[in-house]
């Protein structure tokens, strides 16, 4: 493939990465925004989403369509409930102290990861996508003075991948609607603005926290269910999404949802492009150092409001 189509392919793949990353990172951003805590186990909720999707699709037996649909509905809910449970039992007890929460969520990370290792095992297992038609993408070329369209071999995507990108957009729009148009969203935004005042106004802050934490984890699990037919479910798959979500949330500005989404687009696309042309290890080194330097020199991220 020539450079042009190659770049196009990288962009398509990058868009997919960005879509899934935006979903995952929005969960992390939501939790930090409303609760002011960093959930280091966020990647493990993602991993649980993928693993449970495999498990559910096994239960559904034959049809990949029904299995997948069932997983899509049930798994994010299950993971969300688990997360809410963790919040009510552990995080509440340490009163959401930022440093202790990080230590506790590191512990939860290991618990979730290792329990998965013990039950699901160390293998990577695939989940069949509900549909997967190959769609060839066109490319343009100047020939005989006129613009010619042709279909380079290798430049293609699948109907499923396009659907994932679409689904991510729909969910993010839904999230935006939830936060801005519903009462729950209002409660969450009020608690985010000023916890003391929210308490004084009789807002059930503990319940809002549990819902926010559950919703954050649910978003990560949803992202994982969407991506698992393309990747595979593996007990260590939470590490990369965690790091990337971190990068997105910090660069977008801690607590800023639109910033996180913009950053996800930026990171997802560039990660796709950079990994195609450079070594993925080098790309990761660059990304981790970028997070560090943004935090040191631009602590509010590139878009974030003045959050403490």
């Amino acid at each position, binding site marked *: 493939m020539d450079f042009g189509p190659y770049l196009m392919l990288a962009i398509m793949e990058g868009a997919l990465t960005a879509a899934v990353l935006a979903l995952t990172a929005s969960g992390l951003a939501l939790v930090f925004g409303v609760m002011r805590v*960093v959930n280091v186990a966020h990647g493990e909720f993602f991993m649980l989403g993928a693993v449970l999707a495999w498990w559910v699709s096994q239960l559904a037996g034959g049809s990949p369509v029904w299995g997948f649909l069932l997983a899509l509905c049930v798994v994010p809910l299950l993971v969300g409930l688990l997360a809410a449970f963790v919040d009510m039992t*552990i995080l509440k*007890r*340490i009163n959401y102290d*930022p*440093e*202790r929460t*990080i*230590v*506790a969520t*590191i*512990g*939860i*990370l*290991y*618990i*979730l*990861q*290792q*329990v998965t*290792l*013990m039950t699901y095992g*160390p293998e990577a297992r695939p989940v069949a996508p509900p549909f997967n038609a190959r769609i060839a993408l066109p490319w343009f070329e100047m020939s005989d003075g006129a613009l010619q369209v042709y279909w380079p071999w290798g430049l293609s995507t699948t109907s499923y991948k396009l659907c994932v990108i679409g689904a991510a957009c729909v969910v993010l729009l839904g999230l935006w609607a939830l936060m801005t148009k519903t009462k729950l969203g209002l409660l969450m935004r009020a608690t985010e603005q000023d916890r003391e005042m929210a308490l004084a106004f009789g807002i059930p802050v503990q319940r809002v926290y549990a819902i926010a934490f559950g919703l954050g984890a649910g978003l990560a699990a949803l992202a994982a269910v969407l991506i698992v037919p393309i990747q595979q479910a593996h007990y260590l798959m939470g590490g990369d999404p965690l*790091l990337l979500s*971190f990068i997105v949330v*910090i660069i977008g500005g801690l607590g800023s949802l639109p910033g996180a989404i913009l950053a996800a687009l930026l990171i997802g696309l560039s990660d796709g492009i950079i990994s195609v042309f450079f*070594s993925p*290890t*080098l790309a*990761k*080194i660059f990304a*981790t*150092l970028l*997070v*560090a*330097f943004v*935090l*040191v*020199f631009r*602590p509010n991220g590139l878009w974030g409001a003045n959050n403490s």
Partner: protein
Amino acid sequence: MTTDLKKSVILHAGVVLALFVLQFVLPAYHHGNMARIMVLASYAIGYNLLFGYTGLLSLGHALFFAAGLYGAGLAMSQFGLSAGPALVVGVVAGVVIGAVVGGLALRTEGVAFMIVTLMFAQAGYLTILYFGAYTRGDEGFVIEQAERVLLGADLSDPLMRYFAAFSLFCAAIFTCFLAVKSRFGRVLVAIRENEERASMLGYDVAKYKLGAVVLSAGLSALAGAGYALLFGYVGASFASVQYSIFPLLWVLLGGAGTVLGPLVGTVFMFYLIDLSSGLTTAYMLIAGVALVVLTVFAPHGVMGEVRRRMWRWLP
């Protein structure tokens, strides 16, 4: 000498003496374990200086341990240095990296500081993988037995190895004890307790914090360099996140802000993980549960509780 100081000295001297005597009575398996534990406990002591005494929670100390490990290891394998100079190279590497990373990371606080240190350590780990041609990446490399000779002693011999680990541990504990009792150490505690007040008493808080980071990094690197020399293996896993979490876990369990806490935590956790890895591959589950339980129910750790309830004089 005040009675409190006398009690502290007697206790710590007793522990040191007990460790010395152990080498003659322990069976072979535990002999090797204790040597390993003492080196890792020295790493934990280095971590404790920053976390327990200064109140700065770093999630990237593996960077400093690995600096010592690879500093010494590469010095020997790539540049042919002998054990003694290699040890020095390892410590210097840790101190320099500590100064650079500390200078940058200390511009942030709290959660941001934790993330920045984590990121620098991750970048270090990835860099080790990237330069796999020299470092052999995850697989790691071995330092030949013939080269691990320090001051005429063959470090692969169990008795010599134990004694070397013991000496390293003594150096770490002695440094910690001195630091904590000194003016420097007391200011670090003041910074932990109320940084703004410390600053408004005239202390240049930024300099003290950097000093704490550099000292902590140097001790951690010393442990890393020692590990390379004593156990002859250098691998990227020692630079991974796990090795940043371990000292936090050991110190939390044993008692942050106490001199003996790191040793207690390391011994306990080492054997706990040792036992459970015999039962399942998922032994890190223990670490996870321990972290949650400790941070929720017992944030002071074993020696911390001892100090609170019984021995108020415990440093």
